[in-house]
């Protein structure tokens, strides 16, 4: 493999794409065997280790990749699992923009099955034991110890050279949200009912279940369930149990019967995990008993002309016939059926309570949609939270919400679900909720707090970034940069800035608020309240300056220049014209440094503001007074002849007195001399 990799590199065309100055991706050499529906695979080379066979996955969707799993598994040496070596956005000429690339070690051999392939080659139990069960039990134990879930275990994600032999390798699990590419067959009933983006990270128990399904398919050469739709698979598993539904009346190899029973157990708490698997490998017999199937009612409940005899199938049918569900729930038919036919009085009472908005934090009113959602949650509390087309496990909210960015109507459903406090309702169904369930209540409260505020930095966008810590900023202005952190976002804004509009939109505001550790509510409220052009520009500058300062982002000269171009209204807010000139000149000098905080300190200097306001008021008073005096003098001119006459007469009298006094003195003097 190493020699073929080196040879391919020598033959590679020159237009390769470089990632992190280390990995060379060759767009002209696609690897169809390693590609997924949501990610294309291409030949790649690691300049640090040219002999290591690697390949690159180019992500074709806007959903978050599993960056936490990438970070955890990078650098670990697990021969049964493809290893992540690097990842990041690259300029991808074929897409006309940037794409997220993930560099992985290249597995030897081919896929054990093509995606969607129904009939597989049955592999002998002995070979499965040595090449699949034993190494993958160790792998799953290691992943469990690292608190990492794979969530992508299925035959078409397994690689081996069956003819030459050699170790089997489990394919990647990083390029899409957890279980995004899994079919309902490989998922537990609960998670299979969620939209595929919302199946959630899950736990090791979900990996062991998928491991069991894969083992059963490889051992028997497929399953009749593979050709069914997801809903049919879920219904079959509900009615028969996973083991019976997947085996479908056939006989698995006798030596694998016990492990399959244990791994395909529908009860998560009794499903086999690492310990049971190790015991089984050491030869211990455990005889796992399948959990009892849900009891069937004597008389079924009819939804859309179909009869359903268990509560969970009825819940699934209500979800699939949402418009009809509200009517069925309101006319008490469902509650009567649960009470009289299913004989589950507690659940029947809970169905009645779905119509009541009780408690201090309960929603003001129960809409039809919320009533249906609550009722389905009562009927199937372990399933995903469902609200019309939106359905997700609590740990899959983030990716599910990310999937709705191009579908505003689905995002609205998420908003209604959170506003209707469905998570809190779900927690309230338990007498003694587990810690994981209590965290759902906290999550619901946090999301509701953000959704209740309408301004920039809040709303659905804020929920999106809070729930997806590794999601790139989806603002149309910088979407092409795949900015997953603030420095990258600010650099992207610096490169793409234009002077026509304020730089921060709702996505950027929410991204900054979610990623900055500081509380920026004051800045966000300032942006929301700003109406004058000067206030708008200043509020945007303040938030970006704070972000640049907190994350030590690189200089942003273009952003500074754009702000300077928009600073007209802010500088004009200074009344004193010489001060405006001084501020403007200082700001122009600061642009070159690209430091927004320093730029802001010049533009919005409090000492200057106070001086300007104080002296401006005094100057205004002086101006007003002078104008009033001018007006008074001009007005007085009209009546001046009267004043002049009076003054002239007074002068005449005074002058006469002076002359008289002078005459007396002169006369007396002349007589005396």
């Amino acid at each position, binding site marked *: 493999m190493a020699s073929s990799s080196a040879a391919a590199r020598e033959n590679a065309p020159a237009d390769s794409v470089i990632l992190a100055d280390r990995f060379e991706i060759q767009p002209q050499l696609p690897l169809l065997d390693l590609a997924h529906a949501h990610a294309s695979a291409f030949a790649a080379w690691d300049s640090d280790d040219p002999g290591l066979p690697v390949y690159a996955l180019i992500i074709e969707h806007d959903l978050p990749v599993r960056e936490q799993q990438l970070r955890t598994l990078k650098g670990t040496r697990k021969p049964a699992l493809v290893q992540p070596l690097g990842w990041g956005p690259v300029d991808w000429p074929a897409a006309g923009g940037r794409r997220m690339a993930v560099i992985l070690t290249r597995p030897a051999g081919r896929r054990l099955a093509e995606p969607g392939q129904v009939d597989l080659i049955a592999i002998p139990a002995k070979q499965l034991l040595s090449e699949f069960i034993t190494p993958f039990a160790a792998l799953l134990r290691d992943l469990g110890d690292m608190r990492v879930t794979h969530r992508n275990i299925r035959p078409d994600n397994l690689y081996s050279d069956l003819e030459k032999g050699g170790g089997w390798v489990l394919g990647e699990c990083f390029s899409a949200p957890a279980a995004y590419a899994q079919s309902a067959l490989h998922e537990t009933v609960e998670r299979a009912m969620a939209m595929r983006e919302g199946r959630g990270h899950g736990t090791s128990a979900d990996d062991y279940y998928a491991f069991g399904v894969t083992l059963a398919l490889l051992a028997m050469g497929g399953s009749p369930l593979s050709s069914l739709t997801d809903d049919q698979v879920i219904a079959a598993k509900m009615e028969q149990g996973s083991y019976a539904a997947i085996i479908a009346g056939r006989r698995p190899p006798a030596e694998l019967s016990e492990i399959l029973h244990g791994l395909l157990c529908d009860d998560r708490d009794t499903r086999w995990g690492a310990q049971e698997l190790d015991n089984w490998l050491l030869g211990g017999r455990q005889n796992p008993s399948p959990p009892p199937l849900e009891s069937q009612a004597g008389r079924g409940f009819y939804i859309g002309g179909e009869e359903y005899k268990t509560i969970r199938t009825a819940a699934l049918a209500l979800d699939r016939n949402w418009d009809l569900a509200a009517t069925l729930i309101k006319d008490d038919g469902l509650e009567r059926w649960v009470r009289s036919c299913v004989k589950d009085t507690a659940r029947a009472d809970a169905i009645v309570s779905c119509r009541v908005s009780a408690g201090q934090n309960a929603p003001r009113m129960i809409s039809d949609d919320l009533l249906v959602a609550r009722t389905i949650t009562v009927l199937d509390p372990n399933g995903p939270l469902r609200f019309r087309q939106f359905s997700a496990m609590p740990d899959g909210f983030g990716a599910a919400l990310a999937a709705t960015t191009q579908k505003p109507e689905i995002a609205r459903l998420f908003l209604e679900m959170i506003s209707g406090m469905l998570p809190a309702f779900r927690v309230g169904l338990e007498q003694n909720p587990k810690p994981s369930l209590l965290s759902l209540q906290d999550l619901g409260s946090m999301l509701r707090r953000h959704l209740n505020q309408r301004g920039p930095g809040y709303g659905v966008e804020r929920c999106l970034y809070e729930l997806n810590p590794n999601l790139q900023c989806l603002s149309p202005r910088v979407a092409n940069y795949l900015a997953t952190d603030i420095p990258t976002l600010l650099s992207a804004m610096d490169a793409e800035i234009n002077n026509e509009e304020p730089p921060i939109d709702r996505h950027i505001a929410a991204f900054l608020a979610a990623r900055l550790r500081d509380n920026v509510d004051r800045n966000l409220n300032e942006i929301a309240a700003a109406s004058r052009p000067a206030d708008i520009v200043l509020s945007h500058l303040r938030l970006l300056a704070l972000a640049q300062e907190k994350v030590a982002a690189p200089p942003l000269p273009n952003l500074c220049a754009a702000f300077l171009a928009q600073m007209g209204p802010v500088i004009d807010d200074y009344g004193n014209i010489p001060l405006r000139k001084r501020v403007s000149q200082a700001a122009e000098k600061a642009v070159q440094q690209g430091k927004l905080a320093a730029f802001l300190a010049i533009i919005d200097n409090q000492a200057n503001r106070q001086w300007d306001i104080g002296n401006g008021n005094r100057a205004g008073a002086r101006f007003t007074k002078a104008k009033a*005096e001018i007006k008074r003098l001009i007005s007085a*001119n009209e009546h001046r002849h009267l004043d*002049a006459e009076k003054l002239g007469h007074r002068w005449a009298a005074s002058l006469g007195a002076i002359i*008289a006094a002078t*005459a007396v003195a002169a006369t007396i003097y002349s007589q005396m001399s």
Partner: protein
Amino acid sequence: MAVTTKTASENGAKPRRLARRPPAGRVRGFGLVVLMAIASTMMFALPIFLILVVASVPPLVAYFIDRDSEKYAAVAVGTLSLSGALPYILDLWLNTFTIREAVLILADPYTWLVIYGAAAAGWLMYFMLPIAAHIYLKMSSDHRIAILQKECEALVKEWGSAIGDSAEKS
């Protein structure tokens, strides 16, 4: 029962303009002093009294024809008229203090020319000085307006035209 009273302005009537007149007691006292002075002069200085009678005619006329309460015309004409008579009164007082000499002085047309010429000068001052005062006031006002306008221009230059707008609004 409360009685509401209205002032003249509240009734819509124009308030009556009150002339600035000295109190009646003071006028009466001043008149008494003048009468006593006249009587004393008649009794003890009749020659001088004769000259003063002639010299007092222009200010008296001015006093009666001047509508101004301050009677500046009487003061201006009177002071100059008495200044014109002063040499003759002093001549009488120091040389021949007789009625005959007073009559001789009054018989000289030159005496009348001097006394009434001085009174005419008083009238001339009275009529000409308002013109001078008008010119003075106009120059003073124009100078002050020019200073104020220059100050306003300097303020607009330093603070922008908005300062003028705000001032006009206020």
